[in-house]
């Protein structure tokens, strides 16, 4: 299966999108932490996490005895850059104005 197919297939499920939303909110969660937010069995949660990892949307890292899950937005970024960004004039005015932006952000 093509990489993009895996990404779209992984995203075509509300439970998996919810898992990504959880990680966007707070990254590096363990299986137990993610599972507690879902109304499903541990096996079910693991299956969904596996699909997300196979699509490259999750990166897992061992931290002591625990496995932590990190949202990896790079595959979505690749789709964005290839399919969407080409229609949009984009220029990186870089970080020059960042300070004022951060200040106004409060």
């Amino acid at each position, binding site marked *: 299966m093509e990489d993009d197919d895996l990404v779209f297939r992984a995203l075509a499920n509300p439970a998996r999108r919810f898992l990504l939303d959880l990680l966007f909110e707070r990254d590096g969660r363990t299986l137990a932490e993610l599972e507690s937010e879902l109304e499903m069995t541990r096996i079910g949660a693991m299956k969904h996490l596996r699909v997300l990892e196979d699509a490259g949307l999750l990166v897992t890292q061992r931290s002591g005895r625990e496995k932590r899950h990190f949202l990896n937005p790079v595959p979505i970024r690749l789709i964005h850059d290839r399919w969407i960004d080409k229609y949009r004039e984009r220029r990186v005015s870089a*970080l020059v104005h960042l300070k004022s932006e951060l200040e106004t952000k409060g």
Partner: protein
Amino acid sequence: MTTMTEARTIQAYRVYIRATPEAIWTAITDPEWTSRYGYAGRVEYDLRPGGAYRALSSEPMRAAGAPEVAVDGEVIEADPPRRLVQTWRMVMDPGLAAEGFTRLTHEIEPLADGVTKLTITHDLTDTPGYRALVAGELEDRGAGGGWPWVLSGLKTLLETGASLTH
């Protein structure tokens, strides 16, 4: 240990690239390559423990008033073409520079069929400004798309020879 309010402290990014580990290592550490994707600034790496690291502002960034050096740091571990550990501090903006040094790790692992896995782990503990910046959350403010954007550009460059950055 973990609470509902625990801050995000580590970010991990991964991309699979049809290229050799050597090519990827070069694209990360050689200024001729780093000027062709992402923030498009030239890098200076002294690739040994304690060696200096600087990422320079690109020409367009400098024309817009950016200082010469965008990011600085120090090499902690350099094991070409597999592993590069360094400190990383964005110094382009004084407010952000005050967040201090973070720890950045590149891991390069060859898989089957000419595909190589590149993983970036960025420890961003106590650096909320950097976290937003490198996650690409400030892109609408002209701050670039952070690591997802950099890695997307790196993959595209190595696989197609095309630069996303202009």
